[in-house]
């Protein structure tokens, strides 16, 4: 099974859950993160900050290899039975799913840690760029300092 997929198509959490478990009965815990397009902050059409649509650009080739490197790093830190990362590209609408990170392993602490680790690194290392369409035009989303600090905490602890 390919661990990392970049695709335009949506994904189904149920199908992915069955693939994550397979028939491996040493798996006791799965932690899954799914990110979605927020229509916020403004809810209405009148709000100039309302997100009407989202376009995701990426760097084909580097995207896959950088995410695979993140997954490999997680595998070196925790004993993980299965990992799956799916990131969508192209045009998305508020409420659409963007990203799926699923981790299956023996116990829940490791599952949560590995899943959050992969998400934090994916947010800061994988070459994706979001462009939002708002009522007043399109704009590139700026990187958030909180994402850098979320990724940095995995380096500080050496955990």
């Amino acid at each position, binding site marked *: 099974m390919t661990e990392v997929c970049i695709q335009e198509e949506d994904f189904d959490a149920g199908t992915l859950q069955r693939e994550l478990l397979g028939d491996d009965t040493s798996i006791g815990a799965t932690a899954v993160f799914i990110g979605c397009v927020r229509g916020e902050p403004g809810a209405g059409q009148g709000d100039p900050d309302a997100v009407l649509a989202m376009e995701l650009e990426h760097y084909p080739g*580097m995207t896959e290899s950088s995410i695979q490197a993140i997954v490999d790093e997680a595998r070196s830190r925790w004993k993980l039975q299965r990992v799956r990362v799916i990131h969508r590209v192209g045009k998305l609408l508020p409420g659409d799913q963007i990203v799926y990170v699923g981790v299956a392993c023996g116990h829940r602490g490791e599952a949560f840690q590995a899943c959050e680790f992969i998400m934090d690194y994916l947010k800061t290392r994988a070459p994706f760029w979001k462009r939002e369409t708002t009522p007043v035009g399109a704009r590139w989303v700026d990187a958030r300092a909180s994402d850098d600090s979320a990724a940095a905490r995995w380096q500080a602890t050496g955990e």
Partner: protein
Amino acid sequence: MIKVLFFARLREQLGVGNLELSPEEAGTTVAELRSRLQARGGQWADALSADNLLCALNQQQARGDESITAGDEVAFFPPVTGG
């Protein structure tokens, strides 16, 4: 030839997504390539001077002092915002 890629806001600012340069045009390191592109002036000078620009050499994040040779792929892009 050396392939040079630009993404996202940077691509829009420059009005170009990729270039093919000869090793002579590109220079010998990622940093030298960047300063030669800046030397083109106008949008090139402005857009490529941003402090937070990232670069990659052959699809691996790069610092700037890496050597480049014919066949290499160099990319410049803004901080990433996926997920």
